[in-house]
Every structure is written in structure tokens, then in C-alpha cells.
């Protein structure tokens, strides 16, 4: 199928991409298939398409993040869009303009796609209700980070050929992790079995209701796993409130060879980055090219974001094609 043929039968019929929760397996598969094509394109020297030529993408980041923002910027530029980066310190926003004021201001600039990251759960949805264009959630609080889950899924699918039936362990600060939540929704929808592993102080209440098995003993949780996904532990959490110290965390909940042993011998190690070496993951393991696919995840990230931009702008471009 050519890209043009894919436009006519859109497999993603939403104006926004706010989260994975609520997407069907077919929709997820559609996005992954699209992204697959972009992985190949990106590997070709000079690979570029102009499908977003004339469209404006604004990266609206209320929370700093160089890597995600850069990934979105690259994705949009490779599709020929005009890209504007706006980094807004959320604190200064509070002094005057509200989030909705920002939305009104932006609407006046007619952005076609807004990529938004915000420290508060639900803030991106609020914005999306007021924006005329399409909104992609680049991470809202502890709620969702859909493109991360998609790139994680793509990484797994390309390595293993499928997602269904795999045993995936997500380890770390589940409580505060949007990456965990989006991944849980995606993997469960695609038929994978998901475990979360964390000290009880970092497990949210009733997490099992999301369709996962919770473990407070890391070795038990890692038994027989195909995929081990490590999450970053933020320093603020480490100082005696949720977890007494980094060395204790690493001893009982960090990924090292001893704990990894109980997983499948070819189990893959993933991490959304940036890593705290020696805290959640043994430094040497992170670099082990036979086990760690952390660098691949980054590569998949650009492809996935290109796919999302294409899928969300299908309607716009369809309209243009007809004129």
C-alpha cells in the first residue's frame, strides 16, 4: 500500500491523540504499521516527505523536555511542516495568563497541530477542548504519554514480531508515571500480559483494576518475563519520603544481572530515558547491546511521531486534496 492509499481509508478517526485509553487494537495497529514505514524512510539518507507542507505544528511544552520535544520537531520537519517551539515555564503562566488564555492566543495563530506537554494531569484535554486544530498529548502530569507507549510497542513488535501473549514487567515509580499508564493501556489492549513491580509506596491504589498484576518483590515479578521496562526514579521521590535512599532502591528494585536472571534469557531491557544509572538500572546492563534496546526506542520515537502527525492531519490533507 502506498501512503496515498492509506489516506483514503484512515484507520485513525480522531481529531486528537490525548491518550491510549480508549483506542482500539485496530487503531493502535494502524499507527504502528504507519510508523514502521517511517522507520525505513528515516534510515534512507535524505528521507523526507512533504505531506505536511504548508501546515504548522506548534510544540507547546509547559514542562521542559529536550528529547521529546526534539523528537517531535524532527518528526514534523521531516514531513515538511513549519515548526514552532514554545517552552513556557508553568509558574510564569500562573502569574497572569491562564491555560485557556494561552489556548485563545494560539487559536489566533491557526496552528494545525499542537503538541502539548503539561505537568498537570488532564491539562492537555482541557486545552484540546478549546483548540481548533489537532492536539497530541506529549505527556500530561502522571496521566498519559501516548507516543511513548506507541514507540515502546513498535520497538517490541519489531524485535519480537508481535505483542500478543508477551509477558511485560514495568518497574519503578508507577504511581507518578504517565509512561506506565499509557503502556499498561496499550499492552493490555494488544493482548500482552503486564506486571508492575514497585515498592508499595510507589504503587497507585487499585492498579490491578487496569488489568495488571502488581508485585512488591522484584525477583518474583521478573520471573519468566519477555520484556523488562524500567522507569526513571525522580530524585525528589528518593529522599526518604517514598523510598529511603537510592542505594536501598537499587538493592531491592534496581535492575541488575542478579535480578534479571529470573527473566527469560533473551528478555529485552527498555527505558524511556533519561536513565539514572545505578539507581533503577545497573549502568553496565543499560549498555549491554545484547539485552538493552534503549537506543532503538529513541529511533522508534521519531518514526512514531511522524505516523501520529500523518494520521491526525489526514482529514486536513484530504480536504486539500479535494480542492
Amino acid at each position, binding site marked *: 500500500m502506498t501512503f496515498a492509499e492509506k489516506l483514503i481509508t484512515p484507520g485513525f478517526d480522531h481529531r486528537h491523540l490525548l491518550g491510549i485509553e480508549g483506542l482500539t487494537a485496530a487503531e493502535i495497529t494502524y499507527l504502528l504499521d504507519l510508523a514502521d514505514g517511517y522507520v525505513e524512510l528515516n534510515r534512507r539518507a535524505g528521507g523526507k516527505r512533504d505531506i505536511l507542507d504548508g501546515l504548522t505544528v506548534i510544540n507547546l511544552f509547559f514542562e521542559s523536555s529536550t528529547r521529546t520535544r526534539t523528537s517531535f520537531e524532527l518528526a514534523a520537519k521531516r514531513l515538511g511542516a513549519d515548526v514552532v517551539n514554545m517552552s513556557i515555564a508553568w509558574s510564569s503562566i500562573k502569574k497572569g495568563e491562564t491555560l485557556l488564555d494561552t489556548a485563545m492566543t494560539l487559536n489566533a495563530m491557526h496552528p494545525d497541530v499542537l503538541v502539548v506537554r503539561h505537568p498537570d494531569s488532564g491539562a492537555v484535554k482541557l486545552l484540546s477542548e478549546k483548540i481548533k486544530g489537532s492536539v497530541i498529548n506529549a505527556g500530561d502530569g502522571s496521566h498519559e504519554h501516548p507516543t511513548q507507549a506507541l514507540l515502546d510497542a513498535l520497538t517490541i513488535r519489531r524485535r519480537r514480531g508481535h505483542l500478543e501473549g508477551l509477558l511485560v514487567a514495568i518497574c519503578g515509580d508507577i504511581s507518578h508515571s504517565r509512561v506506565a499508564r499509557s503502556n499498561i493501556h496499550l499492552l493490555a489492549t494488544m493482548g500482552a500480559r503486564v506486571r508492575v513491580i514497585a*515498592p*508499595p*509506596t510507589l504503587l497507585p491504589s487499585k492498579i490491578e483494576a487496569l488489568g495488571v498484576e502488581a508485585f*512488591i518483590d522484584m525477583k518474583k515479578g521478573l520471573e519468566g518475563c519477555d520484556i523488562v521496562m524500567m522507569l526513571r526514579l525522580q530524585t525528589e521521590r528518593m529522599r526518604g*519520603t517514598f523510598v529511603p535512599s537510592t542505594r*536501598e532502591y537499587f538493592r531491592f528494585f534496581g535492575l541488575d544481572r542478579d535480578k534479571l536472571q529470573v527473566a527469560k534469557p533473551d528478555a529485552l531491557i527498555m527505558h524511556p530515558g533519561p536513565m539514572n544509572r545505578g539507581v533503577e538500572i545497573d549502568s553496565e546492563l543499560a549498555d549491554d547491546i545484547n539485552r538493552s534496546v534503549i537506543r532503538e526506542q529513541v529511533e522508534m520515537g521519531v518514526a512514531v511521531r511522524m505516523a501520529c502527525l500523518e494520521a491526525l492531519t489526514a482529514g486536513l490533507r484530504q480536504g486539500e486534496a479535494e480542492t
Partner: protein
Amino acid sequence: MTGSTPKHRTAYVGARLLDPASGLDSPGAVLVEDGRISDLGPELFTADVPEGIEVVDCGGQCLAPGLVDMRVQLREPGEEHKEDFDSASRAAAAGGVTTMVALPNTEPVVDDVAGVEFVARRAREVKLVKIFTYGSVTVGLEGREMTEFGLLSDYGALGFTDALQAVADAQVMRRALAYARVFDRPILQHPAEPSLSGGAMNGGELATRLGLSGVPAVAEVMMVERDLRLVELTGGRYHASHVSTAATVEVIRRAKARGLPVTADTAPHYFILNENAVGDYRTFAKVSPPLRSESDRQAVADGLADGTIDAIASDHAPHDQESKRLPFAGAEPGIVGLESLLALSLELSHKGAIGLLDLLRRLTLGPAEILGLKAGRLAKGAPADLVLFDAERPWRIDPDSFLSKSKNSPFEGHPVQGQVLTTVVDGRRIFDWDAA
């Protein structure tokens, strides 16, 4: 292989064997080999004891597992003038206590691995009774940051407590209860709402007459009720220390009926004395929580009898004269209790409030089970930690003759029945009444 070391074997014969775990209460004997109980029972050594075995004639006296005192303050490091590992161990031996668990409120606080290792090393050096420690729940006992429960547990901490003060912040307590689940350790709380616990004695008529600020009884149950909600939320194991009021006993009774993982202990002064012991500003009766009303005292005794309270712990709190010879409000709270623990506790069984075997359970198996210790049992293969005592022999408590460095006890002259005759740890006899 050339000659192996001959096993040291001792037979304790003619004893009344008492083992709460199995319900054994019968005449019989115990054979100790290389520090362990290798055999016991009514059938053992009914004929003569074979050659090569040392014989100790127990004269029909009670032979029970050595006492496990789960709440003692050893004052070392930091206040060695009040007590140290040596004096406390000798006091324990005299009291029939073969295992004691120290609170972490020393100087420095036992809030890191070095502190736990210190206790283990000193216990090995003194080599009398077995000494374990708790880790503190919070760093420096400041009530804010959790200590490294995992590493401390690995090095031997049996549980976590902030000792003489409550973990007051609900979020801190919640996280502590949740986190401790990973390592299967209990959180032991000094249950007293701090903002209500500044008083010098129990709030009530006597405090009013004496012009002393009072701690209302509710200060204790409020904290226990709050904590039990957190237990329900987190599934963590909780232990209420030194229960002193009827209200608390009732709340714990109901919580246990609902299957919550809660345990409790109390000290002899809470089921023997009431606030009247304060009398004329007697600072030896100043203790935290304070001695309570007569109905509280009775409820605590009842709680022990029906098993709502799982353990009796001395809450041994040595203080020197300087700390006690002050106007009541300024005096340090605390009572020494290692040497009077058994005799005072026996009052309950002598009065018929509880059977002897059940009483001994509160002093041995009960605390051992709470802390996951291999102690408190007379069983084949168990360590030979024993106490031989005369349950009937009357004497009067005389703090001046205590082996402890400190003598702060309100029980001077108090008549008791029950005398420790011999204390054995890992097969070694560390106390003999006749030799003393």
C-alpha cells in the same frame, strides 16, 4: 578424621515442663546438647541419666522457655551512666530474660546499618543474653524521612519504631506501613497523639488535685484508631506498644476480630498499678504513657487474659537519680523492669486471671512470633534458652539490689511470688540464684 569435640550435654530433670507453643505442662526433663534442646518430655530420663551427661535437678520447679523481652532501653551508646550492654545483660539474666530487643533511641539513633551492627557486635562481646534491635522508622527520630528498612532488615533489625514518640504524620506512617511490607517487618508505634501528650501524668482527679498537667486517655486510642485505618489501607503489620487504656484494648480487640494484622504489648506497671501510685509526686511512678485509672488497669489485665494483648514487655527504662530527683513535671519518665518482669507478671496467674501457660506465652512465644524470632519454645532442635523458676517463692522487690545500673522502680517493697533460679542461653548457664 581425628577426635571430634565431645558434645556438652546437660539433663534438666525433675522439672515442671511448661511450653506455651505445644501446650505442654507436665513433669519431665530436657536434654541440652551443644546449645540446643535435643530431647524433652515426660518420658525422658524416667530412669537414671546415662554417663557423660551433666545432671541438673530442678526440684519440681517450673522450666520454661527463656523470656523474650521485646521492649528494652539499653542506653548504649550515649547514656552509659544509666545502663550499658553489660549491666543490662546481667539484669536480664537475673530476670530470666534470654532475648531482649532494644529500642533505637540511643545516641546516635539506630537509623542506619552501622547502628544495627553495633548492637550485634556488643551483644557478641558481652556474650550473655541474646540482644536484637529495632531500627527507627524515621531518620534521627525526626518523624519525616524513612530509614532504609531493607538494608536495616538485612543486617538484623527486627522491626521499626520511633521509640518514645509516635510517628505523628499520617502520610509518613502510611508509607512506613506500606514499605515495611516488602521486608515483612512490623511497625511498632508508641501510640500517643503528641499534641495531647505533653502532660506529666494521667489526666483526671489526681492530676487536678496535684496541679499537674494531664494526658487524657483518649490521646492513646486516637492514635491507634488512626493507625488502624492506615493498616487497613496498606495491609502493613502494626504493633501497639505499652497499651495502657481500656479504650485501646477494645479497639484492638475489634480490629483483631476483623482480621487486621495488629498486635500489642503492655508492661507490668500497666496491669498492676494505677495512677494512685503517683501519690505524693513519686517520680518513680512517672512513666510514658502514664499510669492510668483503675478501670484502665483492669481492662489491660483482661486484655492480656483474653489474648487481645499478645505480649508483656518490661519497657525497661533506666534512669539515674539526677533524672528522677526533680519536680514531677521535669522528671524523666520510665521504670526499670528486666529483673521484676517475671515476678510481677506472675501476679496475674496467681490471682487466677490467666493460666500459667498462657501467661508464659505472653512472655515468650507471643513476642517471638510477632518478631519472627526462633525463640520462646521448648522443642527439639530449638536453642536451649531456658528459665527455671520457683513460681511460688515469695520475696519483696528491692531495687537497690538490682543488677541494673539504675534503680528507678516504684515497686520497692512490693511483695511478689516467683523467683528465677537458673537462666540458660544456648545451653550456657548465665545466672544461678544460689550462686548470686
